[in-house]
């Protein structure tokens, strides 16, 4: 497929003047009609009613292939969380060793393990998971809230275990 000619972008308002203006009492609600610049890469042009145009860069075949590779081979498709997947403590340990813990999303994923144990009243497991996680993350800056929750759970677990 070749690169189609870029035609003048038209706003929907031009197509049908009163399709959605006065009736609802608001004016100038023009709608963008994107114009395809390159149908292979998905490069498009979005143009506002004001006439300002913005190009949304396409994705080359190589770039897409790299994403496909990451998605299907490294990520194994979308994240799958089957029931009881967190019973696997080895999994937690492995993630603890391999994940980049400076990324918040990764820390939250790991924190979910002790949170689940806490909810399930498995205080001894929860306490251990918290200790391991605290050791790994305690020096990361600006995560006071997260640390506080881990310490809170740890303390509550010790308290509850001591009462058993």
């Amino acid at each position, binding site marked *: 497929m070749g690169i189609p000619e870029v035609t003048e972008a038209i706003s929907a308002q031009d197509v049908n003047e009163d399709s959605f203006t006065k009736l609802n009492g608001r004016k100038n609600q023009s*709608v963008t009609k994107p114009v395809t610049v390159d149908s292979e890469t998905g490069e498009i042009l979005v143009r506002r009613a004001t006439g300002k145009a913005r190009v949304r860069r396409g994705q080359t075949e190589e770039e897409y292939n790299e994403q496909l590779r990451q998605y299907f081979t490294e990520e194994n498709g979308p994240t799958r969380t089957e*029931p009881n997947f967190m019973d696997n403590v080895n999994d937690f340990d492995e993630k603890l060793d391999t994940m980049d813990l400076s990324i918040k999303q990764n820390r939250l994923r790991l924190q979910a393990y002790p949170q689940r144990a806490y909810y399930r009243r498995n205080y001894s497991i929860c306490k251990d998971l918290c200790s391991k996680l605290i050791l790994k993350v305690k020096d990361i800056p600006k995560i006071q809230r997260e640390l506080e929750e881990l310490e809170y759970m740890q303390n509550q677990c010790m308290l509850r275990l001591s009462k058993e």
Partner: protein
Amino acid sequence: MYNTTPKPLLKENDPLYIIQSRKTTHNRPATIAGPMVRYSKLPFRQTCRDYSVDIVYTPMILAREFVRNKNARLSDFSTNSKDTPLIVQVGVNNVSDILKFADMVAPYCDGIGINCGCPIKEQVREGIGCALIYNPDLICSLVKAVKEKYHDKLRLETKIRIHDDLNQTIELCKKIIDSGADWITIHGRTRTTRSSTPVNLEAIKTITAAIKDYKPNYPVVANGDCFQYKDLFEISKITNTDAVMSVRGVLANPSLFENHLKCPWGCIEIFINWSFEYNNGIPFQLFQHHLFCMMENMMIPKHLIKQLMETRTYSQLIDWIDETFILKRIDDPGFGQSIEPTYRQIKSI
């Protein structure tokens, strides 16, 4: 090179079959929990499924980000073997992106829905969401591209809003049908109608009649203001649609399709269970907000809801609930069964 084959469609998971057959097999229209940006994540979807929701949507996922960015994928879409029938909803404005997106999600869902209704300015400006209903050629090219590639192996839906001039909506629907979409969901509000304004069921009725006139038995789903079980029948009857999609209704009461007038306590237990079970980094505020919506629906006293909103972490929230109510865990007898909450005795000082 990679296996992008769509998941096989069987009677149990084919959304089209379900929409077309529920009236015969179950004596009721098909029940659908519609898409909610941020909210329709796996624990909530699973909770809906536990209460007779036939088909559940993901939140709108932006194709552009999904096909280009691993982090977007990680935060936007997680699933599991129980997460079916599932429609992955996509926000998209060009053919190249939707084809790539379809390749990546088809093996893990039961259909793709194109969002042609989102009124948020940032999306409309990009030609995404309800901008699409003013751009029939683009919608049709998106639908055609996917259907020409996958034919009946992958279901494809469009969820639209209505125009001020219903003739425009009718013309649009005819084009969408001709392009091969498997069914159309009609949200009976225009781009600028506030969600507090009652949904325009007469409009859905008119459009549906025109659609069925054009293509007999073509499946149509009605969306808007389904808050109670009786609404399911009323909306479907008035509009003559095959299925009804609820969104804010199920957010407040995921059990509404089982004729619970308000959210039962057991539903809270089930939602909390799935939230911990499937938590893959879901922000605490999202979990808390779901509980807020459900507890408000149950008419839990305001001062207690205020306390709920003062909790700051998953563990604090659980401790607060355990101090205030009896919250059963999955292995406890009667888990997920109670209707009313059981309050704990007020602690003596």
